[in-house]
């Protein structure tokens, strides 16, 4: 694997963004170029994954970037990052293609598409980065563009809509930057202890011990917890998701949250000592609180988008719970659940956006009996909701099942009783998830008990051909990963053993 493949994967979205911007000076051709760009990046990522090995084999890009402080331009692709890279490029391609026919209010669709491509570059860079500071830098690339996406194209309906949208955008920005700044503090502390920013070296030889190492691990966890998000640092998320335009919500939920979970696997596990008595149980505890809290919050939601947003908090809880168990099975579960959540929640946000477009509202109190009007759209929502609540045979099942299993058998140095208890509570969260999704489907899609008539649609018509085109890759992936989990689990296991060594 040569430098062209990896550098090119990061550069391709930027180049395509620049082209879209040039073409898009006049007319709407820019969006088409951007959608094409999404496909180019997708193809490039497939190429990169095909030529890469499942374990990091030393053939990565590694040159000095700022020699004076030991920051290196170090990129690599292995079995842990490859699934996330592919999932991201697919979701971005879908989002960009969706933009061609379905432009959000606010105009300037080309600019929106360009921003999405810039976000994609940041995301791919983060997944490839093997240097702490480089990861941090790419992590930040996505922020300003995402802030613009929410601030400019977000939903400004309702009283004080504009002010609320602005608040959602700024809150997203400030929370995330606060988190990543704290993470950066953690990273420089890690360097003070380990002597390098290179995560491969750190994973191979760093033995965390002492107060500074603990402080570093806590700060890194805090930073990632904001991004993931982990309860109680999730408060930026519901607003950001529900105010963002459809493609913004899709990207935010499906991809940007994964930077946090990926960070836990790649950059947190190596700087943590499983022998520390309280750190992992506390993080795992917060994750489980998040699962239950999110499920209860979902039961109380009256807005479709907010409901999906809160359900994300719950799913991310499973991922973090799995990561804290410090086992091979845990890492497998975390990657699997991350990819599955990306596909399924991306699809859900697309579908909910389509409902909102058709009826002009996402208010669960007003949406009634939609099956009668838009049976195919309703069917897809039901399908995605089933996948999200973890129906066996669909992608969502394996991640949550494996996460709970890994929590029952955590690393030997962790307090097993605590983790078993957490696993039981998390399993209870799965049941609650079924409850809120079924309640949502019953109230919005089946005719409720009152038998009230469905609301008057703003735009008539069921799923269009273009929407089928955009959504079908996600639907297909949900099915494939539901029936063939081995596709993902094997490479992840190989890469994890090579990267982290002594996991069970």
């Amino acid at each position, binding site marked *: 694997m040569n430098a062209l493949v990896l550098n090119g994967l990061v550069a391709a979205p930027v180049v395509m963004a620049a082209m879209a911007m040039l073409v898009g000076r006049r007319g709407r051709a820019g969006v088409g170029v951007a959608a094409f760009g999404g496909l180019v990046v997708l193809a490039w990522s497939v190429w990169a994954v095909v030529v890469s090995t499942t374990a990091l084999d030393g053939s990565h890009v590694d040159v*000095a*970037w*700022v*020699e*004076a*402080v030991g*920051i290196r331009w170090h990129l690599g692709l292995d079995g842990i990052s490859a699934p996330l890279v592919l999932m991201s490029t697919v979701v971005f391609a879908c989002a960009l293609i969706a933009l061609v026919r379905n432009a959000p209010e606010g105009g300037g669709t080309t600019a929106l598409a360009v921003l999405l491509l810039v976000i994609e570059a*940041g995301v791919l860079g983060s997944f490839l980065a093997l240097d702490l*500071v480089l990861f*941090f*830098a*790419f992590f*930040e*690339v996505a*922020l*300003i563009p995402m*802030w*613009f996406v929410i*601030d*400019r194209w977000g939903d400004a309906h309702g009283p004080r809509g504009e002010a609320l949208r602005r608040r959602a955008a*700024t809150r997203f*920005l*400030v*929370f995330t*930057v*606060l988190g990543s*700044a*704290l993470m*950066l*503090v953690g990273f*420089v*502390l890690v*360097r*003070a202890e380990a002597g390098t920013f290179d995560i491969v070296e750190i994973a191979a030889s760093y033995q965390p011990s002492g107060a*500074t190492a603990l*402080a570093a691990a806590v*700060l890194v966890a805090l930073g990632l917890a904001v991004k993931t998000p982990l309860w109680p640092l999730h408060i930026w998320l519901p607003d950001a998701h529900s105010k963002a335009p459809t493609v913004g919500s899709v990207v935010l939920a499906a991809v940007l949250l994964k930077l946090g979970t990926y960070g836990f696997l790649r950059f947190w596990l190596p700087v943590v000592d499983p022998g520390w008595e309280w750190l992992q149980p506390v993080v795992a505890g917060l994750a489980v609180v998040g699962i239950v809290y999110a499920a209860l919050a979902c039961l109380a939601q009256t807005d479709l988008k907010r409901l999906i947003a809160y359900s994300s908090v719950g799913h991310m809880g499973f991922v973090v719970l799995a990561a804290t168990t410090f086992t091979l099975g845990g890492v497998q579960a975390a990657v699997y659940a991350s990819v599955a959540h990306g596909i399924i929640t991306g699809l859900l946000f697309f579908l909910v956006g389509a409902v909102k477009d058709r009826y002009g509202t996402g208010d669960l109190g007003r949406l009634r009996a939609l099956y009668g009007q838009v049976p195919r759209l309703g069917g897809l929502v039901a399908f995605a909701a089933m996948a999200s609540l973890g129906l066996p045979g669909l992608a969502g099942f394996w991640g949550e099942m494996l996460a709970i299993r890994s929590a029952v058998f955590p690393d030997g140095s962790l307090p097993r009783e605590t983790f078993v208890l957490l696993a039981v509570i998390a399993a209870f969260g799965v049941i609650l998830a079924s409850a809120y999704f079924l309640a949502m489907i019953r109230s919005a899609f089946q005719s409720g008990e009152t038998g009230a008539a469905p609301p008057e649609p703003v735009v008539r018509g069921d799923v269009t051909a273009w929407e089928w085109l955009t959504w079908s890759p996600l639907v297909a992936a949900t099915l494939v990963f539901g029936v063939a989990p081995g596709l993902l689990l094997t490479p992840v296991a190989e890469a994890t053993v090579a990267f982290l060594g002594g996991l069970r």
Partner: protein
Amino acid sequence: MTVQSIDWLAVAAPTVLAVAAVLVLMVDAFVGHDRLDLPGDRGSGLALLPSALTVLATAVAAVPTVLLWQEPVRSTFCIEDGVEGPLLCSFATDGFTLVFWGIVLFGTAVVALIGTASVVEGRIPQGEWHFLLLSSAAGALTIAASRDLITLLVALEVVSLPAFALAGLRRGDPRAAEAALKFFLVSVVSTAVTLMGISLLYGVTGSVFLDAVAASVAQGAEPESVLIAGALLTVVGLAFKVAAVPFHMWVPDTYVGAPIAVAAYLSVVSKAAGFVGLMLVLGRGLPGLADAWAPVVAVMAALTMTVGNVLALRQDHAVRLLAWSSVAQAGYILVPFGAVRPGAAGDALAGSLGYLAVYAFINLGAFAVAAVVGTRHPAQRLSDYRGLIAEEPGAGWPLAFALVALAGLPPGVIGLLAKVIVFDAASSVTWLVVVMAVNVAIGLVYYAKWLRELFRPAVSVGASTYDVPNGVGVAIGMTFVAGVLFSVLPGWLLDPVLATLG
């Protein structure tokens, strides 16, 4: 009494600026006010002559700076300490000095170019303005090479005295006069305090040479309490110059009252001079007392960035916002001082120097665009920047870049790396770094507020475009190109800068 041999190459850079200052004054005298300072389109090309001379002088002064870079260590104006003792020098160059000279020369050239925006206005006497600017810059060069407390203080005054006049330069503006007076009073008090501190240090150690002071402290000069008092008083005096909280009160009014080019000068070059003074006195003269002064500076740094950021949040006036943001940025630059341990000053202070180098051209870029917008909107409300990207992309994009770089976010990668460097240098004082991390997030709120205005659709599309003066255009271009270049290849700037102290 022997005549000293002087190393002319070492003193060439400050000399060039001083000579150029006299030259500008003579041009002013011979050409005459009436022909230099005509307002508006009645002005002749002559009005740009002093600016051109100033930029030329900085370019000429850059030549010896570059020549020295290969073998930077030189010293002159030396005396022998006793019969057998080491040579003690008042004026010496090394890598650190040269980096700072680069900052000052670049900054002065950009400030002179920004100043051309005021030519049209015709309210700023061009001859005086450039004479004062060059004099002050000559002082700033000297301070970086000074190696004894007296030279350092005199050089600091050479920086400051012209700066008072600069702050009040705008003719017939009572606000400018008030700003200048406030600045003057604060500065005089701070100088007096610094002098007091220096006299205490001299009293205990018996020398004004920084190296001799350091040696004396290392040998355990007594009484230590007087030494510490001297160190803290000196710090207080210099803290006024860098506008560290609680000695920052003069900043907003002075920046707003002064012409924008002067505000840019105060926020970058004059402030950098204060930081160099701090680095020399604390890092070179008193590293042995770091246990006493480092915690004080750490608290000061935490206060400075927090107060600067929180007050910047409420500003709606662009220059006032930049003023408070520059207070906050000064806090970041102070952070590594808090991590200095006795005997290891260089590693930590390299973080400050690196941040200062980055901050210099980023902040100048923001001021340069503010100068352009100021030609049409003297009120400098943030809403005046609405739609700047669409209306005048040549000014809008550089400002957007400068703002994200000041906030420390990509695509302003160089700003992000500057923060990484400070974090890295100060990682041993974890609480302070955490405070800084929180501040970075607070600072983002007001940078984002400004950024949002830039990208909002313009009120009237294509109705009118800015008439960007050529000089300011060059200033914007220089800072923007530097920012973009160093964001892609940060090693080109940061590696040599950090190597001088690391």
